[in-house]
């Protein structure tokens, strides 16, 4: 209860001095920069970054046949460091088959179903996180390039609308914290701009790896709103908007975040 009061107080004070709106491109900062030096060095050290454990498992999954009759990812895509380079930096992407954008997890599952004839991974399962992290790791350091496809325009707009719409018992929109009050504190934590530059991330709060959808569902439940189900089009639209919002910023997967 006191946390609710504290939150309202922070925003009430902050609202006076701040203008609502998108962050200018040159002022965008990754959440990495708001972290303490110890946490940053954790992300930077591949031998200490717990997210690399999932990347290592993903590497094993890449070469594993789902069953004796199916192909492994490697059988079609070969060396992931070559074939998957820059792929994650372009997702979510438009899928002609779906007639709408799909995120990387959905793309992987589409391959599982149609090319490997295997059952799709459950959202947020260890396997799906591992293979997504492994693929996304191949784009580490590359600039995010999402949303320029004209077919994605209505979906980016839908995502932007989600981002700006108040929701939940706390009646808050994402933009109020992450566009209007980034850099300020909520309790003991610095409010980040909320760029999706490092997903899947190893989040210290989760003590595990998690997807952007998990983070979004966490935030949505945090303002006391019923979160969308995993894979819901609203979440993918939000993911699309967030990646478009982070366009040009380097991908950091596997990032570490508090």
């Amino acid at each position, binding site marked *: 209860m006191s946390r609710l009061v504290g939150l309202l107080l922070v925003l009430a004070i902050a609202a006076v001095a701040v203008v609502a709106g998108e962050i200018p491109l040159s002022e965008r900062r990754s959440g990495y920069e708001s972290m*303490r030096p110890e946490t940053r060095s954790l992300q930077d050290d591949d031998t200490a970054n717990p997210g690399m454990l999932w990347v290592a498992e993903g590497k094993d999954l890449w070469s594993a046949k789902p069953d004796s009759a199916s192909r492994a990812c490697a059988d079609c895509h070969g060396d992931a460091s070559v074939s998957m380079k820059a792929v994650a930096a372009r997702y979510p992407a438009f899928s002609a088959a779906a007639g709408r954008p799909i995120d990387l997890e959905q793309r992987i599952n589409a391959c599982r179903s149609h090319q490997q004839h295997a059952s799709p991974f459950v959202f947020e399962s260890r396997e799906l996180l591992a293979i997504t992290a492994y693929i996304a790791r191949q784009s580490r350091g590359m600039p995010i390039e999402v949303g320029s496809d004209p077919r994605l325009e209505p979906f980016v707009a839908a995502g932007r609308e989600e981002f700006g719409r108040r929701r939940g018992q706390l009646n808050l929109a994402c933009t109020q914290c992450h566009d209007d009050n980034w850099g300020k504190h909520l309790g*003991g934590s610095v409010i980040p701009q909320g760029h999706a530059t490092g997903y899947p991330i190893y989040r210290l709060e989760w*003590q595990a790896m998690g997807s952007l959808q998990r983070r979004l*569902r966490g*935030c949505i*439940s945090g303002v006391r709103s019923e979160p969308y189900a995993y894979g819901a089009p609203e979440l993918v639209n939000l993911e699309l908007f967030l990646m478009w919002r982070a366009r040009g910023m380097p991908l950091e997967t596997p990032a570490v975040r*508090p």
Partner: protein
Amino acid sequence: MKRRDFLVAGGVGAVFGAAAATARATPAEVLEAVRQLTGPAGVKPGRVTLDLPPLVENGNSVPLTVSVDSPMTAADHVKSIHVFVEKNPQPFVASFHLSPRAGRAVVSTRIRLADTQSVLAVCEMSDGSFFSGSADSVVTLAACTESE
């Protein structure tokens, strides 16, 4: 409630029953645990340095480095380092066992801190003496609670 066995290393065996799930260690429990470790020898503050962030990002994973000033020779080295906390559910964090083969008595790990508190490291030297050092850390809860 099952009794859980904990082996406190350094040649001293001790069995501590598990506290109830909501219980918390106290500074007195830490003192008792240290006393069980050192026996009548007692502990002198010094030679042990803890590198611990003064304000943590998240209590689930706090980086800790313990360094002991020691030549690490066969005649004079650190045998073990024991880490204690006073406000976690139990006082033990870890025990590290070294030998002259280590070269340097420096160990890093990541620990959980349930609350703002002090972390204490007691090390046993090859001559049977004990030295200690401590550091404080402020731990805050995450700002938003998720119902995931």
